[in-house]
């Protein structure tokens, strides 16, 4: 809103300044025109006549800009745009010339002479010039916007990677995991071996951060699996995991590392902050052309289990950057206590490379 107002204000300023500059340049032209017709104007009056000529454009340009934005010359609609702009150029030009003639007559007592066809040409040319400038600056702005969005996507992915790294290198998680391995070594060498390998895998991946924005759900779940089995080994019976993944959702693309902060949140609030067993669930299903993923925990029966940490906010901004309004993320208290996080994305599949 505010940004729009600033932009409109700036356009007015630039347009007004340009037209005033044109008026100053054309003052001598007006003086010569009148001299040829045998009328000697003072330089002051010549300036006023030139100002009437050009500042009328400053008044009319918002209409022209609006028309140019409304009917744009794109590849598939240039015919329609031409059909609008040819007659509207003539109408705007006629209005402008009429107003100009009336105002000039008001100031000088007689009309601008001689009235040449050159004037009509120049008027039509100015109309098309405004249309062209609007068109080009629109393109420029869109390109800038695309660039900004790409940068934003890049930075939010980088942040998600840093978050994942922080989660895996969180001293509490890391030292407790090492302690669990130390404990398992005396009871079950195989289990200790497996857990060490999983921890290594988890750490390795955090050092290999790729710039991939989206990947199939199956891959994202693989990433989670190492983390979940470590947590399962730590908490034992206290962590009751339930993962229900509908088969056809496995190939759907999801943003990289989107599930990690959700699952970490669910474990932290469902298990780590309260005594006794707790459940954490992950479900995915396709509903028409939508992919819906739920992450649930049956933590404390209070709304305070919802802590909108940085990870959650980053999820929102990544969805916005990747899908615009076509994706949603909601986090609310579960009817039976705990919390439920719902991701709703367009079900897109990777394009087969040929």
């Amino acid at each position, binding site marked *: 809103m505010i940004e729009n107002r600033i932009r409109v204000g700036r356009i007015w300023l630039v347009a007004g300044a340009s037209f005033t500059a044109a008026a100053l340049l054309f003052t001598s032209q007006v003086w010569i025109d009148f001299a040829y017709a045998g009328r000697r104007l003072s330089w002051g009056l010549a300036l006023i006549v030139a100002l009437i000529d050009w500042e009328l454009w400053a008044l009319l340009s918002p209409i022209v800009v609006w028309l140019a934005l409304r009917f744009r010359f794109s590849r598939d609609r240039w015919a329609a745009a031409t059909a609008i702009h040819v007659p509207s150029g003539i109408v705007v030009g006629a209005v402008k010339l009429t107003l100009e003639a009336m105002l000039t007559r008001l100031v000088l007592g007689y009309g601008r002479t001689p009235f040449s066809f050159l004037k009509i040409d120049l008027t039509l040319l100015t109309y098309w010039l405004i249309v062209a400038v609007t068109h080009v600056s629109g393109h420029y702005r869109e390109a800038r916007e695309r660039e900004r969005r790409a940068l934003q996507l890049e930075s939010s992915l980088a942040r998600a990677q840093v978050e994942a790294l922080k989660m895996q290198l969180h001293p*509490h998680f890391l030292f407790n995991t090492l*302690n*669990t391995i130390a404990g398992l070594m005396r009871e079950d060498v195989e289990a200790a071996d497996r857990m060490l390998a999983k921890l290594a895998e988890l750490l390795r991946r955090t050092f290999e951060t790729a710039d991939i924005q989206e990947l199939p759900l199956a891959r994202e779940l693989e990433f989670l699996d190492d983390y979940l089995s470590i947590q399962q080994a730590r*908490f034992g*019976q206290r962590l009751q995991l339930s993962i229900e993944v509908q088969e056809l959702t496995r190939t759907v693309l999801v943003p990289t590392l989107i599930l990690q902060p959700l699952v970490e949140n669910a474990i932290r609030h469902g298990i780590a902050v309260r005594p006794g067993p707790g459940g954490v669930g992950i479900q995915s299903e396709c509903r028409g052309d939508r992919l819906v993923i739920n992450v649930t925990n049956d933590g404390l029966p209070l709304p305070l289990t919802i*802590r*909108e940490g*940085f990870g959650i906010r980053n999820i929102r901004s990544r969805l916005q950057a990747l899908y615009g309004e076509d994706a949603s993320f909601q986090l609310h208290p579960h009817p039976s206590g705990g919390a439920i996080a719902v991701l709703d994305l367009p079900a897109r599949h990777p394009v087969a490379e040929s």
Partner: protein
Amino acid sequence: MRAIVVDDEPVARRRLRTLLQREEGVEIVAECEDGTGAIEAIRRLRPDVVFLDVQMPGLDGFDVIEALAPSEHPAIVFVTAYDRYAVRAFEVHAVDYLLKPFERERLRKTLGRLGEHRDSHEASRRLQAAVESVLTHRPLRRVVVRTPGRVYAVRVEEIDSIHAAGHYLELQTATATHLIRESMTDLEARLDPARFVRIHRSMIVNVDRIRELQPTFHGEFIVSLHSGRRLRCSRTYAEKLTTLWGS
């Protein structure tokens, strides 16, 4: 030596038990998985030593010590994976602790120290000093509210925002307003600076409860909370708020 092992992670409990069972003269009389169970077991069994995990769901290690009377204090060995506040306090007040995962030698050394003749009164005093130091230095977890009728606690994560009102502070939660007699500066100093931020001379907000920040003219912000409440962040505090919220 009669010992109790307290840890919320089963493998960690079993590891400590296995290690302790190999040592001469140590008998494990109970294992507990949370603070409440630990308090009950300590009162009932009167052990000589308790290996007490610091981070636990519900009541943590320090809450257990606080809940017991000094006369009920057994010898305590704190066990922690990582806790910078606590470890500093243990060092300062010469309280025994083990860092997970610990070596067997380290456990032996600790047991050796416990076996020496010790002034239990002095040990209890040091323990209390350490716990008190941790509780005052680490961010506040709950705020105690005193009304003529009753005294109760509000958990800090429930607080949306804090407003100055004369000599009092109003704690706004989703459902109620609580009045406490404390100064803004004193309370701010004890709150977690990663969660609570000053947005106005007379206002503190819980960043986890912020839904949206809207910039307005002059570098100010309208802060919309999940509860629907809208607050104004003045320019002086705007930068700190935006960095904290975006971090």
